[in-house]
């Protein structure tokens, strides 16, 4: 119980820290998006931004709340206002949210979470700028138009609650979980056939394993691993990481997602461009 409360408190603290960083992240994302936008994204389609799809007659089982009374009052029939709930122009972003994302190998580098959020927001800004609608998977409905970016940023603070929105997927995370777990996760996102990108964000230390000497590797909630000579296992670790990477690529391709890799010690601009390119409809 106390543990639970403590973890709740630590989550609140983390959320507050994140909230404090968000405005800066939004600004950075807008700057990043502006640097990526010119020449790549000029199309603005007529009628974009409409939420309305069609009116249809009330059928049994429709809740009275779903009846559009204003429209119905103009005629004899009762109409239900149906929303455009499946649209290829909707971009659904999901950033993995677990404690491992808060890792950084060097204190002067951003954490994986910061970099993932930055990429996500920049991507959202780009999409919004292109007139598309953006949703956060499981957290917000699709937003569009001015102000949407701020609402999306605020959406990162929400717990997963809303019905997932359909659309192209942009999954950002470290994908270090066992392949089965990743596969289950992709299935949960309904990834298959939707198209999109899977961006694996890794820290430089995770990729290169620069540790030497006796090191006690630990992660919250798991048994620590006592390595006597870290330099001796670097090669083996890198092989295992490559295997993991291959597994992720395989899973992504099976789900028709474009697999991308981004290291936090690299600049975010090229990564954003690659994501942007990966999201172009495969026609």
């Amino acid at each position, binding site marked *: 119980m106390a543990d639970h409360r403590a973890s709740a408190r630590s989550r609140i603290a983390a959320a507050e820290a994140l909230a404090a960083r968000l405005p800066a992240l939004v600004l950075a994302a807008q700057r990043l998006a502006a640097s990526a936008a010119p020449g790549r994204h000029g199309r603005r389609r007529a009628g974009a931004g409409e939420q309305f799809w069609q009116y249809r007659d009330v059928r049994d089982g429709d809740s009275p709340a779903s009846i559009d009374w204003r429209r119905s009052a103009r005629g004899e029939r009762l109409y239900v206002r149906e929303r455009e709930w499946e649209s290829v122009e909707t971009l659904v972003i999901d950033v993995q949210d677990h404690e491992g994302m808060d*890792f950084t190998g060097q204190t002067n580098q951003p954490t*994986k979470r910061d970099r993932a959020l930055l990429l996500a927001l920049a991507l959202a800004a780009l999409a919004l700028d292109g007139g598309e609608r953006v949703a956060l998977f499981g957290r917000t409905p699709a937003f569009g138009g001015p102000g949407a970016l701020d609402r999306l940023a605020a959406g990162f603070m929400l717990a997963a609650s809303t019905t997932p929105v359909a659309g192209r997927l942009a999954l950002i995370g470290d994908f270090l979980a066992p392949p089965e777990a990743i596969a289950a996760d992709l299935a949960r996102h309904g990834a298959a056939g939707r198209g999109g990108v899977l961006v694996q964000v890794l820290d430089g230390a995770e990729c290169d394993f620069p540790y030497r000497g*006796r090191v006690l590797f630990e992660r919250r909630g798991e048994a*620590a691993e006592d390595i*006597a000579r870290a330099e001796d*296992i670097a090669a083996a*670790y890198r092989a295992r990481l490559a295997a*993991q990477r291959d597994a992720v690529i395989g899973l992504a391709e099976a789900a028709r997602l474009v697999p991308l890799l981004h290291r936090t010690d690299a600049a975010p601009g090229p990564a954003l461009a690659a994501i942007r390119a990966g999201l172009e409809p495969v026609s």
Partner: protein
Amino acid sequence: MIGPISFAAPAILAGLALLPALYFLLRATPPAPRRQEFPPLRLLRDIMPTERTPVRMPWWLLLLRLLGAALVIIGFAGPQIVPPRLLAGDGPVLLAIDNGWAAAADFTARIAAARHLVDQVAGQRGIVLLATAGNAAGRPPRASGVLGRIGALDALGALHAEPWPADRAAAAAAVTVARRRIAGLTGVYLADGLAAPGLRRFLAALDPARIIAGSPDRIRLLQSPKLSADGALIARLAVVPQQNEVTQPVLAEASSGAALARIVVRIAPGAASGAARFDLPAALASQVTSLALPGAAGPGGVMLLDGATRQIVVGLVSGGTANPEQKLLGSLYYVRRALPPGSVVRTGRIGPLVASGISALILADVPLNPADRSTLDRFIAGGGVVIRFAGPLTAPQPDTLTPDHLLDGVRMLGGALASGKPERIAAFERGGPLAGLTPPRAATVSRQILADPATLDPATVWARLSDGTPIVLGVRRGRGVLVSVLTTANTAWSNWPIAADFPALIGRLVRLGTGAAPKSGLLRPLRVLNGIGTLGVPGAGARPMAVADFAHTTVSPAHPPGLWGDAQGSIALNIGGHVPPLAAAALPAGVPVTGLDALPRARRFGPPILAIALALLLADLLISLLLRGALRWRAALVLLALLSGGHRARAATPVPAGALAPMLAYVRTGDPTIDRISRSGLGAIADLVNQETAAHLGAPRGVTPGVSPINLYPLLYWPITGATPAPDAKACHALDAFMAGGGLLVIDTDGGGSDAAGSGAGFDPGADAALHRATACLAIPPLVALTARDTLAHTFFLARSFPGRFDGAPVFIAAKGARDADGVSPVVIGSNDWAGAWAVDASGMPVRALLPDTPGQREHAAWFGVNLVMYALTGTYKSDQVQIPAILRRLGQ
């Protein structure tokens, strides 16, 4: 025991057996790992299932730790080198310790050696202590019973040096008694190394197995000083003749204990004594009451002075208008020649003479006005001697400053119109201060003043004519003496002044105030020296002695050194001159002799070994932190530098000190003594200003005008002595700019020539010339004498006089028209040596003696110093208040 090395706690060495165990333990214990959060932890699972062995500790770190542990064990075991035993045999040890005056100088070392000896032998054998000098109660030396270690150490702690020689004969008797009482005594003798009567017998009785002797070369004994023909005090010092030259400083001390002068006596190799003269101004020389060797020299290093060896300053005043110094006729001609050799003679008027610090005043036929009368009353009460001669001016109306009532008129003895014949001086009264002088055979008195026989107190008659008429009256008043000689000081009324023993009379008379030596009867000890050379009350063993025995008495518990005397006066009995001549003792051959500080001591190595072990373990701590990555190399180096104390702050850019806080400055003279006095004096004034006023001054600074900037200081003190050279052009320019810029230049000399005003006269004959030389190039404004009405006299304290070390010399400031726009004088010139009065030493005691040291002189000097500072800081701000009475009066109308 390994060779010469033994251990204080050998059991601890068993801990070394644990070292191999420690070796395996250390090898088995891996260094603590560094903790690293790592998200891809899953990928590390079972990555090396076979390699679980921890990293071995580096062999050198292992060695370091083992070495540290071994050193800790060895250090606590306390390795030491213990010298071989000092004394063979067993049975109690009879430790005879010389504690006479010759042992006092190194008594601490003597007791330390005795303690050391007791520590070595007392455990098994017991100690019998014997101090060879009798104690102040008159008890002869006596051996103690057999003491244990604690008892012996207690007895040693209570032992002290005595101010008389050891009594070897009585000590030999005590040894014999002890040997009879306690069998098997081994003798050890802590000798002072000086030859002494009875030493051979004592050594034969003691039969010492070992002698521990202080070097007799260290013994110093002050001898009775002499007065040179010109009155300077000549200190004499005796030593045991030795191969090297001896140089020994000697201090001349006042009764307060303040050192008035310091000289160095040099004794040539092989010589037994040496001498050196004190060149002191007369006024200071008369204040010297003892000579002393600096440091803990014991009673042999103290020479008390009595009247015979104190210089006296005599003032001579004559009445009338005739030249008193006229050959053969002048009223002072014979008296001046009758004064004891070495005395200092001053002439002048009564007031200034008394103020200049004389000890005796001779008035040859001087009628007194009331002011002089009260001055003389105070002078006598304060210890002065006034000797009045009669004469035609005072005879018609005798005043009341006489020992007894005098009749007016002159008694004529012989001559054309008188009956009778000139009378001879018949006798000096027994019991009077003149007792013992031989009555002059040929001297006759033809005229005299008469004491009133109706009221005559016989006790005031010190000498009579052959017909019984009093001719010398005298009385003690307060601490001083008033004497009337009822005839003239020249040959007008009597031929006494040309008698051969007239100087003896005058010499006896002028010394009455400084403590005349009693000439007859028994002497009692008044104040006696103790074993460390300070004066105290006599012990129970002190016995009176006859004056006749004084010269050849030897100091002893019955006759301790000190001041002896009776109501008539006192005389100093010193060790020097009253003990046998110094010579090194002949110690028996065949007995091992050790120096006081040459006793072999145990050398202990535990503490340094433990320190090394601690350093090793600290290094180990640093290295482990480094290996774990908790400490970076750079941080480790900084830490190491901090630990080794090699870190030193870098000096900041210097800011001129005067810019940060107001502070006083003095001109550096190059003479370290004067500069120290200036700095100390200004520092004392700054402290007083900080304490009494709202101003806050920093520590004073020494400056060199023209080289260092001086414009920042509010007050610049410039001490000028006869040796001060003329300042160069740059310095003059800087000083002029300083005065023009609102600074206050205080020029001061340390006294002046013999014709200068004030009590500093004669202290620095070249000062006046130096003052002219130094100020020649300066733009000094026209000057007037400072008065008590001037602003400077009441800027803070209300000062009526402006004394420094001296008093009475005028102080000059700029005349009214020549001051700056605010009416402030840019310069103050005096010759009272203000800094000399202000200066205090580290313990807050004044450094220099004052003249004439009137009550409050030092306070007034400090007040004037504060006034100077406030004058420099606030200008004429206070002068507004001068007008307050006038303003109030006008407001009232």
